[in-house]
């Protein structure tokens, strides 16, 4: 019987090895290990054996069963894996084909710049203020030391609605309004971004509508060196650590002293090139110490309070920072333009 069992094992294992489908394996399992299979048959004939032989043959029979069963399981796993591999192979896709698009919008370049400026000044403790675009002559001009017959009004020809109302020519009226609101006894630290309007014919460098960001800081004992320090910090954060600033004397009716701020040219680092017209510097913004008359009109005592103000044009900054060559690009909303400047 021992020989018979060993022969059965050999036979079965050979068939398992040759099997190529799960069905074949199943029929091998049934025919060898089933209740009507040859091993069961052998075990049934054990009655004829001596008591000494019985446990030996019994153990052998179980071993044979186990070996066949193990081999069947192993082969089954092999075949299953092959089947899965084949199925997955058949599911192969071309991964280089484009994906299904999702909607991708984005901010306008000007918004991007304005928000970046806002965030930098917020970081320095400034609040953001807004004001009306149709302004009174008083807030747009008079409160800023530009009385009715002031020659400097020529500098910014304006769109009037009535004799007393006009489209604001700068966002500076928001400064006057804020100071007025604070009634002369509280420090003011604010920036005001917004749309402004001037009587210009639209061309590559002029636009009748554009954007401005103004800043104002009024407190006791504000120094001109503070203006220089704050602008320097802004310039380095906004344009890059390696950029230098310089202030030049200038004139604005609402500041005294007045300054214009240049930053060192990115291209030549101050050596002079065609981008900076050979000067090594590029003009970025204007500012100065708040004119005592402006403080006075807003209810601040210029003997006690002083302050600085500055203003910049996001269009100009965008043109410098990103090389935009025509200011009209900001207002035609050409998709090809808008898509180029997604916030990273």
């Amino acid at each position, binding site marked *: 019987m021992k020989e018979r069992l060993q022969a059965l094992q050999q036979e079965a294992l050979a068939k398992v090895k040759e099997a190529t489908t799960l069905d074949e394996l199943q029929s091998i399992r049934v025919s060898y290990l089933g209740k009507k299979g040859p091993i069961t048959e052998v075990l049934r004939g054990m009655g004829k054996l001596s008591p000494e032989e019985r446990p030996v043959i019994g153990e052998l029979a179980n071993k044979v069963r186990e070996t066949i069963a193990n081999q069947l399981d192993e082969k089954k796993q092999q075949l299953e894996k092959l089947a899965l591999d084949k199925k997955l192979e058949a599911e192969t896709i071309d991964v280089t084909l484009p994906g299904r698009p999702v909607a991708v919008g984005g901010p306008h370049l000007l918004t991007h710049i304005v928000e970046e400026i806002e965030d930098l000044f917020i970081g320095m403790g400034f609040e953001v203020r807004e004001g009306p675009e149709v302004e009174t002559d008083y807030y747009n001009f008079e409160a800023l030391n530009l009385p009715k017959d002031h020659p400097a009004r020529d500098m910014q020809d304006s769109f009037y609605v009535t004799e007393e109302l006009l489209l604001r020519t700068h966002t500076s009226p928001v400064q006057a309004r804020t100071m007025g609101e604070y009634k002369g006894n509280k420090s003011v630290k604010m920036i005001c971004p917004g749309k402004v309007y001037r009587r210009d014919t639209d061309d590559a460098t002029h636009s009748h509508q554009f954007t401005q960001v103004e800043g104002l800081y009024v407190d006791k004992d504000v120094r001109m060196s503070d203006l220089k320090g704050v602008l320097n910090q802004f310039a380095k954060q906004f344009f890059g650590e390696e950029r230098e600033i310089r202030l030049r004397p200038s004139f604005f009716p609402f500041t005294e002293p007045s300054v214009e701020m240049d930053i060192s040219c990115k291209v030549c680092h101050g050596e002079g090139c065609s981008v900076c017209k050979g000067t090594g510097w590029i003009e970025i913004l204007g500012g100065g*110490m708040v004119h005592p008359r402006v403080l006075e009109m807003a209810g601040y005592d210029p003997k006690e309070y002083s302050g600085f103000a500055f203003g910049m044009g996001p269009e100009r900054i965008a043109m410098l920072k990103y090389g935009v060559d025509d200011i009209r690009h900001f207002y035609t909303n050409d998709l090809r333009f808008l898509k180029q400047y997604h916030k990273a």
Partner: protein
Amino acid sequence: MLVSLNWLKNYVDLQGSTPEQLADKITKTGIEVESIEYIAKKIVNVVVGYVESCEQHPNADKLNLCQVNVGEETLQIVCGAPNIAQGQKVAVAKPGAVLPGDFKIKQAKLRGVESNGMICSLQELGVEEKYVPKDVADGIFVFPSDAEVGTNVSELLNLEDAILELGLTPNRSDALSMLGVAYEVAAILDVPVQLPDTSMETSPVKANDKVAVQVDAPELNPYYGAFLVENIQVGPSPLWMRNYLMAAGVRPINNVVDITNYVLLEYGQPLHAFDFDKFASNQVVVRRAKKDETMITLDDETRTLTPDQLVITNGSEPTALAGVMGAANSEVSETTTTVLLEAAYFDPKMVRISSKAHGLRSESSVRFEKGVDPNRVHQAGLRACQLLHTYANGTVLSEPAIFDQLDKSEKQVTITTERLNARLGTTLEDNEVSVILKKLGFNYEQKDDAFVVTIPTRRQDIQMFEDMLEEVARIYGYDFLPYTLPQGAAQAGGLTKHQALKRYVKNYFESAGLMEAITYSLTTTERATMLVSPEIEQEAVNPIRLSMPMTEEHSTLRLSILPEMLASLSYNVARKQMNLGYYELGTVFISTEKQVTKQPKEKLRAAAALTGEWLTHPWQQEKKQADFFLIKGILEGLFAKLNVEASFEATKIAGMHPGRTALVKVNDITIGFIGQVHPQLQQSFDLKDTFVFDIDLDYILVHFENEPSFAKIPRFPTVSRDIALEVADEVAAGDIQKTIEDNAGKLLKDVTIFDLYQGEHLEEGKKSIAFRLLYFDPERTLTDDEVETSYQSILHVVKEQHQAVLRG
């Protein structure tokens, strides 16, 4: 202001600075040098030649054959200039010379005759056409007879001069003169200013015996000086003066005109020369013009005057529009022999009004408008007389006729070093401050800790401490100011809730796939009334029109963002960018008055427009056109994000598709609209189907600024019921939904529409809408009975209100 450095050197030692170095210093100290121009850099081999003979070219009618002595040799030169003649001294470019424009002069044969050089015009030597004197504009330049043969013309014609163009801010009108610039440069270089010598020989005959001055409007004309110069010989002015004028951008005319222009540029004081014989009277009367009085000015225009303008008269008729332009009747000409020279101070505002009214802005009016130096008016008159004496052979009469009520006093401003340092953030010492004041040429007195500074009248812009602060700071150098940070109490900066929400809304639109647009606020009158939301239409009386628009295109303030946004879509579509989704947050301007007197209401609106395909995925044949429900989905997403409950109600709005437009309502208030643009309007913008909304963002942000409060996550099971209702086509799904919400009781937490069916198996004119009802109670498990009761009451009420029946 154009500043010739060769001219400037007459008043101030430039210390050997190159033009570039000087320009850099001037810019950093306060006056921007916009450009440095050279008339012609390095012209060699061009010398003065004497035309010994000039005959017609044997083979050409229009050419001459000249023998020209250039010093060491005599050259044969062919010349085509019409004004060439024997005996002239001319500019000869010898072979080897290189003229501006890289024009090389070589020996050549012209029509078979040898030519060894070229006789030059001023233009050929680099002088701009518009500055070339008219008499030599069409030909060669002729030197005065005393020019030395063989001299380099570069020097004689001042060709190597560098011209600085100053960009003057309105406060620095003191630099509208060579002397003013000299003071500025002297302060920068710390050198003295050399003033012109105005001494001269005068005739014992007194001018004030021959002419009297009467000023009837001293408030507009506090100073009038009338000088008389007789025996004038009108002719060309000296070459050096012509050179300086051309460098300064003024065309030389004749000695009398040139001298008044020269002094204007030198002193910043405009002068006017009358032909005294034509003046036809011995009195100068200055008065306000009469209403509708007329005069013919030098440019032969008839001018109608008003009483806020000032005229110079001969007692009966105007001879000049004060400060602006002379009259034709007393103009200086070639035959003038006696000049009446006016040196006056006119009120800046009056000149501004007058020059503006007549559209006449000149070198003179510009200076009067800014206010001339009261202490230079008379000096300038003397300087002109001296030059007329020297260069026009004039006899200057003594004792000019003068009217003088002019305040020539100097202001005083007190400064202290302590206060300067406190404002600048510097640590200046008293002696440094006094050095700066000396450089500026300002006299001062030290009293205790203070400097009492006397401000020269040339610096009318300096009136108070802050003005002196700027003077000290700029001469000290802005570069030397320290960098400090404000020492005031630290404040937390930040956005207001409204501003933060605005950014949140923008981010939402962008994540929904829309691109931000920024359009103009000013539009056409037609567009200003187009696609206006009903609630704005109701409030705004008229769109606001500018009183003086530049163009009709930008004449009126918008009441809706949409028209200009459609124009932007149109711009893109014309450039073959067909698939577009834009949004904009912007202001519209609402006036409730017929005649605008008050500031309009400015409302923040959010608008969007979509056209073309949306999220096309071609290789999988997925293609979807933008439609009403796409844009509605985007807007609903916004409301969901902001926790706002909005409803939509079918409506008709001009310019919108009559069957595809809805009002957007929040709290039963209309806050905007949504829908498809009317096909006719679409067509006028060359657009295909376009879907838009325009809503009042202020309303939403103001009314829903609160943080959403926490709602418990349900612990007990929810129960859902589906209900399919058959209704007439015209019944709006939203209305049924609202009826369900209002009548189902508080256990109903949500209603969604999940199916819409029209067609087979349904009666004509009917549709079936399926709703999913979601019930739950956060505190307990619901019973079937409770849900059933609500369900039945819904069936009842929708039947009653919408004739809806349960679909079997």
